[in-house]
């Protein structure tokens, strides 16, 4: 937001040059994004974040700067305008306007013959209009233009300029209608109808819909609430009579409308951050006063639709909590000084529980009224929860309105621990229409006052009454006790914050005010004073690092890829987009779906990299997303984490045709190094992913469990990815299954004490015969004495008949019980040879 240095200086005459307080502002309140010199002024671009409500105008910003620079104490450095602003800020709502217009009784009267209808106060908490007849339009005075120009606001006409001036001064946008162009004698604040249209001041036609709030007359829309005025009732140089609007609109609604219509106006920017309905009154007062002064005319009074006036919030603050959160002792004097600089009223409360109890006792006998308003009915009449809410509000402690909410806001305590000031709950005795579930179960609340006594606003007796706890429990099922006041009877302060400070709700908010105004640089870094338990070990982190080390040792480079894939790549991988979880708002079409395989990311890195290398190897440990897993969940237990699967993926490319064995070697080493010895490669599976070579692929299994796959990349798919040469092989292993297998309990097995006997066998088999098949046959016929089978040679070529290949194995025989005799090994080998030969394979002897 833009602020003029000269303008700020009007409120703080001793304001130093911007570069002098830029740092202080950045360190204590807001980031100053830029300072720009413009026509004898400096324009500061300040980011007020969540504080637009109080610093969206020059006046509030000046007050903030004054508080930071601590000029508030020095009345001479503070202008009378700023003093007046602070004074009005302290006034009760509905008194502000009268105060500002106290010299003009006509203006402060009720407007006759003109009405406002607010359809939904949730969307428009406050709507004020004032009427002035017989204004004289003329050019804006030089001072007015001089204030607006540096902020980039062009002069339109006197009235519009004044309205803009008020917005930049107070932060509250206002609007001026030409009263004679309004049809009928009513203004409606209502939702637009679908297919309703409005043309804006700058002649843009907007199509409205029923999610948008508009200001309308009998003939249709006059303005889009909080966003932009329409041209039908715009003020012109011929305007005589005017209706001035100053209102408060719901932030979310304005933000949504401005976004839909793409109208990022100054007004929308402010309203969408939620403004204070009381500042609307201040702005209205000032605008009427200035219009009467500069454009003349006769005030006809005002109309104020303000159903739920907002009052300053009381917040309980404990000094020791401030010290504990900041980690630095804050003295009472320091705290009170900060509150003074911020112009917050502070009172001290010695024992909050006692005050609450005493107040409750004082209110005994007040009538019960279901749905009593805390704002209007208290302290005259109460229902059970408004009674409790009212009590706590008096000591600055805010709790929710309804009893079941109060139940959940409190800390559960046992009846044995009950202390005066705690709350007790029971179910509602007689059902009320529309009240069910928790609302009914925890439908009644009372306050415990010690000595086994409870005070509560009780419908059954029509008043605030005192009873014993056991009597309280008898009426309906007792639901237990809750504690609102966490720390016993500590002394605390009650800070009263003006309604403009919409950002201040709880104790921690006040702690932030203290911390930032004193300065976080005054907090010295300190190591933890308390003991923490030993941090839990994260096995996934450890295993991921082990896997990385092993694959790195095998020559693989780790990549980091996007989790996404595009429809083009899905097609290349032989998938259907319907199987992929889709993004609602992708940034690029090639990253529009969640990937189902990390290999789909890895292979894309190969063609970009292989030039000049004889082999490249990549791996990645990342997540894939299996959409179907989410469909299986019921709507009530819905965890998108269930569709996520972590994978160890690798891709090896080689300019020779040996990529599969490169990859397989790495995978075998990976499992072996992790101590998983029952891993094997199963080629029986018929349905390999279609991007794999059907005759160069295998399922990776540990025991009977499939944990991943390995395979050469399908030549047709490889072609699509523009690998001109060589072969790529890929693998993907389920990380969780890998870790499970690796973590299977290690139990030491002593090596056999007896010597082993090794026999070698060479077998000639047809080339399509798999090593696994031969090994299986050997192991299944050898009997228990065969300890292990190691293939040490696989050969085809010279000396071997074409279409056949030779496999050679070491057969290691060993026993745990005794030294083996040569003869028994010979018998076993003979059995193996017989079995091999029965397959028609030739065993070389």
């Amino acid at each position, binding site marked *: 937001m833009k602020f003029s240095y000269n303008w700020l200086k009007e409120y703080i005459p001793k304001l130093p040059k911007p570069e002098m307080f830029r740092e202080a502002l950045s360190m204590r309140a807001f980031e100053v994004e830029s300072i720009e010199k413009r026509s004898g002024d400096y324009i500061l671009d300040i980011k007020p974040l969540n504080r637009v409500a109080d610093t969206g105008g020059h006046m509030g910003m000046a007050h903030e700067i004054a508080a930071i620079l601590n000029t508030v104490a020095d009345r001479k450095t503070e202008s009378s305008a700023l003093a007046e602003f602070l004074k009005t800020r302290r006034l009760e709502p509905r008194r502000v306007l009268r105060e500002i217009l106290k010299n003009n009784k006509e203006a402060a009267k009720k407007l006759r013959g003109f009405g406002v209808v607010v359809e939904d106060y949730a969307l428009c908490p406050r709507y004020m209009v004032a009427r002035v007849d017989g204004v004289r339009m003329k050019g804006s005075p030089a001072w007015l233009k001089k204030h607006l120009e540096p902020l980039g606001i062009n002069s339109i006409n006197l009235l519009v300029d004044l309205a803009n001036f008020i917005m930049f001064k107070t932060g509250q946008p206002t609007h001026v209608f030409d009263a004679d162009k309004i049809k009928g004698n009513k203004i409606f604040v209502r939702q637009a109808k679908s297919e309703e249209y409005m043309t804006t001041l700058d002649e843009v036609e907007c199509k409205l819909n029923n999610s948008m709030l508009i200001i309308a007359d009998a003939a249709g829309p006059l303005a889009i609430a909080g966003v932009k005025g329409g041209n039908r009732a715009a003020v012109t140089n011929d305007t005589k009579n005017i209706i001035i609007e100053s209102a408060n609109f719901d932030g979310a609604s304005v933000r949504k409308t401005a976004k839909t219509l793409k109208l990022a106006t100054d007004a929308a920017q402010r309203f969408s951050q939620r403004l204070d309905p009381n500042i609307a009154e201040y702005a209205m007062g000032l605008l009427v006063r200035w219009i009467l002064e500069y454009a003349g005319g006769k005030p006809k009074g005002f109309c104020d639709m303000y159903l739920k006036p907002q009052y300053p919030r009381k917040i309980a603050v404990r000094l020791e909590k401030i010290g504990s959160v900041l980690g630095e002792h804050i003295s009472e004097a320091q705290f009170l000084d900060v509150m003074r600089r911020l112009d917050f009223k502070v009172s001290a409360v010695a024992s909050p529980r006692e005050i609450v109890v005493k107040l409750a006792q004082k209110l005994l006998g007040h009538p019960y009224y279901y749905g009593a308003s805390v704002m209007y009915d208290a302290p005259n009449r109460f229902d059970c929860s408004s009674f409790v809410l009212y009590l706590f509000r008096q000591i600055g402690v805010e709790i929710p309105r309804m009893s079941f909410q109060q139940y959940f806001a409190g800390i559960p305590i046992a009846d044995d621990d009950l202390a005066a000031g705690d709350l007790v709950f029971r179910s509602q005795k007689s059902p009320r229409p529309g009240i069910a579930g928790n609302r009914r179960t925890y439908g009644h609340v009372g306050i415990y006052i010690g000595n086994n006594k409870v005070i509560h606003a009780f419908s059954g007796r029509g008043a605030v009454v005192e009873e014993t706890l056991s009597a309280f429990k008898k009426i309906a099922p007792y639901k237990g006790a809750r504690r609102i006041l966490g720390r016993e009877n500590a002394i605390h302060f009650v800070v009263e914050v003006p309604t403009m400070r919409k950002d201040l709700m*709880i104790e921690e908010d006040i702690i*932030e005010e203290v911390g930032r105004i004193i300065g976080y640089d005054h907090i010295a870094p300190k190591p933890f004073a308390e003991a923490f338990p030993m941090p839990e070990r994260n096995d996934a982190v450890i295993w991921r690092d082990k896997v990385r080390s092993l694959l*790195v040792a*095998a020559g693989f*480079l*780790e990549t980091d890829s996007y989790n996404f894939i595009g429809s083009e790549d899905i097609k290349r991988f032989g998938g259907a987009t319907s199987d992929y979880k889709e993004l609602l708002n992708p940034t690029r079409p090639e990253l529009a779906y969640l990937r189902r395989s990390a290999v789909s990311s890895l292979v894309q890195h190969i063609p970009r990299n292989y030039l000049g290398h004889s082999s490249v190897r990549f791996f990645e440990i990342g997540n894939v997303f299996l959409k179907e897993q989410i469909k299986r969940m019921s709507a009530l237990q819905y965890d998108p984490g269930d569709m*996520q699967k972590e994978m160890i993926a690798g891709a090896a490319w080689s300019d020779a045709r040996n990529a599969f064995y490169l990859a397989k070697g790495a995978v075998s080493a990976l499992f072996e190094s992790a101590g998983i010895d029952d891993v094997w490669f199963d080629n029986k599976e018929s349905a390999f992913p279609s991007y794999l070579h059907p005759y160069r692929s295998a399922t990776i299994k540990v025991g009977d469990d499939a944990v991943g796959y390995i395979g050469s990349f399908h030549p047709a798919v490889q072609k699509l990815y523009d690998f001109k040469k060589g072969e790529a092989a890929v693998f993907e292993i389920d990380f969780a299954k890998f870790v499970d297998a690796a973590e299977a309990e290690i139990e030491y097995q002593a090596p056999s004490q007896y010597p082993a006997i090794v026999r070698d066998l060479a077998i000639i088999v047809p080339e399509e015969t798999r090593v696994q098949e031969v090994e299986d046959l050997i192991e299944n016929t050898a009997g228990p004495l065969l300890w292990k089978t190691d293939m040490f040679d696989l050969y085809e070529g010279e000396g071997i008949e074409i279409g056949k290949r030779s496999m050679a194995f070491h057969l290691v025989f060993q026993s745990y019980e005794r030294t083996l005799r040569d003869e028994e090994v010979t018998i076993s080998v003979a059995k193996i040879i017989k079995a091999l030969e029965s397959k028609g394979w030739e065993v070389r002897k």
Partner: protein
Amino acid sequence: MEELKKIRKHFEKKLKEIVDPKVLETLEVEYLGRKGKLTQILRSLKNRTGAERRKIGKAANELKERLERLFAVAKKDLETKHLERSLREERIDVTAPGHSMPVGGVHPLTKAAREVIDIFGRMGFAVAEGPEAETERYNFDALNIPADHPAREMWDTLWLKPERTNPKSMPAGLAGKIRNPKLLMRTHTSPVQIRFMETHRPPFKIISPGRVFRHEATDASHDIQFWQLEGLAIGREVSVANLKWTLESFFNQFFQPKAGELAVEIRLRPSYFPFTEPSFEVDMRGGDGDWMEIAGAGMVHPQVLRNCGIDPNLWQGFAFGMGIDRLAMLKYKIPDIRLFRENDIKFLKQFIGK
């Protein structure tokens, strides 16, 4: 006796001439072998008479010893020479390249993340993890960012298409009444903290490193996917002072100023996040360099604790978040965040072993 002299003379002469160890062996056979010249003389002694036999025998045995000694010396000498020669013949060009072995390496972000995990591990922080696709509740609502809150716009979100649920799978009476939760790619790793707090009792200290996602226009410092590091410490009296100590210790360990260089300094500026109160921007300055914004932090908002079933009257703590990509960019002087996910070998290989 003459014969012995002759043998001696011939043997010594021949021994001097020999350069080939094989010839040496023949010489040994010729004189000292079973049928060798000297052996034959010794054998023929039995035909001689006593005195002669003693005299010649003594001389022959002396000669045998002498020849054997000479032979051993010559043999050793020859072997040494021969070994030297054959070693010279085996000479290779050691400047020629070795057999090519593929060299692998971890990604620079892994390297940075490992260091982060190690440093925080030494400070007693455990590592917590969670899903990358999340619900609106975990990513926003539980963090005190309701749907219509302007703060939602601080995180440009990649949303997932809503899933249609079969009405039959819904509990009776709820079909059509409950909408599936909105799914998204997590915009920060804060949901991990929420999930952790829901399932653990304080006190605890955790970090949650992981991939996060934003709907953003990419440039040298923005990407739609990157790594984030968040930290959370909840205890009885965890404070802003503890936060400052933790972050300052971390940055000094991570960036490791060299001896003589100034330590890394941090400072806190007020900021606003819905899930912390107070909230800070964290600036960092190495040595006498300029301040730069490096992290967001704050004291966990009591409502967030309450949302996770932790009593804010008893517990308080801090949270912080920063980009691991950015940490790595600063540490390794990488100018463009997009390089991390381009996966160019020339880029990746630079971090091997570092």
